[in-house]
């Protein structure tokens, strides 16, 4: 599934002209940063709650 998705994403990028490809990649970079951001923010929240819980105990 992942490979299938990547294949079409790469195929699309391959056909883009210069400026559009740069913008597309920049956007892709920000989307990934966003996903990482959400993931690590959630992890941080969980970690803090666990620490608070342990301190309460």
């Amino acid at each position: 599934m992942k490979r299938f998705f990547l294949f079409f994403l790469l195929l699309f990028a391959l056909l883009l002209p210069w400026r559009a490809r740069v913008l597309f990649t920049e956007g892709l970079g920000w989307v990934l940063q966003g996903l990482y951001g959400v993931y690590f923010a959630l992890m941080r929240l969980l970690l803090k709650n666990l620490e608070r819980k342990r301190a309460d105990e």
Partner: protein
Amino acid sequence: MKEVAVLFSGGTDSTAAAALLAQSYDRLHLLSYGHSGIFRPENSRVNVALLRERFGDRFVHEVFDVDRLFRWITYLDYWENLRRFGFFNLTTCGLCKLSMHVRTLAYCLEHGLSEVADGANRHMSHFPAQMREGLDELRAMYERFGIAYTNPVFDYDSPDGLDWSHKVGLVREKEANRDDSETKPRTTGRLLTELGILERENVKGTETDRRMQARCFQLTLHNAFALGYYIPRYGEDAYRRGVQRFYRRKIARISEYLEDFRQHPESGVLARMIDQKT
């Protein structure tokens, strides 16, 4: 006077390469590059100032915009390359670095320099211009024009990068309390601290690191191809062979234009591509 050109991003590896060379060269031409998708290439000035503090005023620092050159190199013989190499045309990091090397080579021809170095390191080997096969192709390109190309920090160890505690947002606290004794021996960061250029040896992935070099997300596409698609499917050896074939072909074509540039530095295709200086 002994002179050398250094491809200089301002990161620890290229700064370490420059610091090593500064011990035996009279003048170093530090060449930094920007293009669409690279933000703040001027950040490289931070470490140029530190190098000047340590070794005196023997550094010439230039920042070039290689956008036009990068685009031209990417789309040179595009349809034929698509047919022959497919997704290897999306190895954007390799094509970007190739455009920087072509600009560097032109700079060397313009200034009569016969030596070039950079901060290529074996630990970033999925990038074409950091893997041995890619470096060999680049070396051959320079050799054709009588220029020696070396990688002074290629065998240096890699420091620990971002760890989990950085990623959950504890970066600043962690950076302040970073235990440098845990890093492996012989990293470029350690060399720079020993030379008194950096205060902390392990800055990779930290705010300090981000302040001293450009930011670029264009590697997303390259990584999607190499790490997400090709290597898991065909393996690293096939990837390396593919990279070598693709870049050998690219470099052979570009060398024809470089030869023309050597004969006619004021006119021709390449002269029009490399006239951008920021």
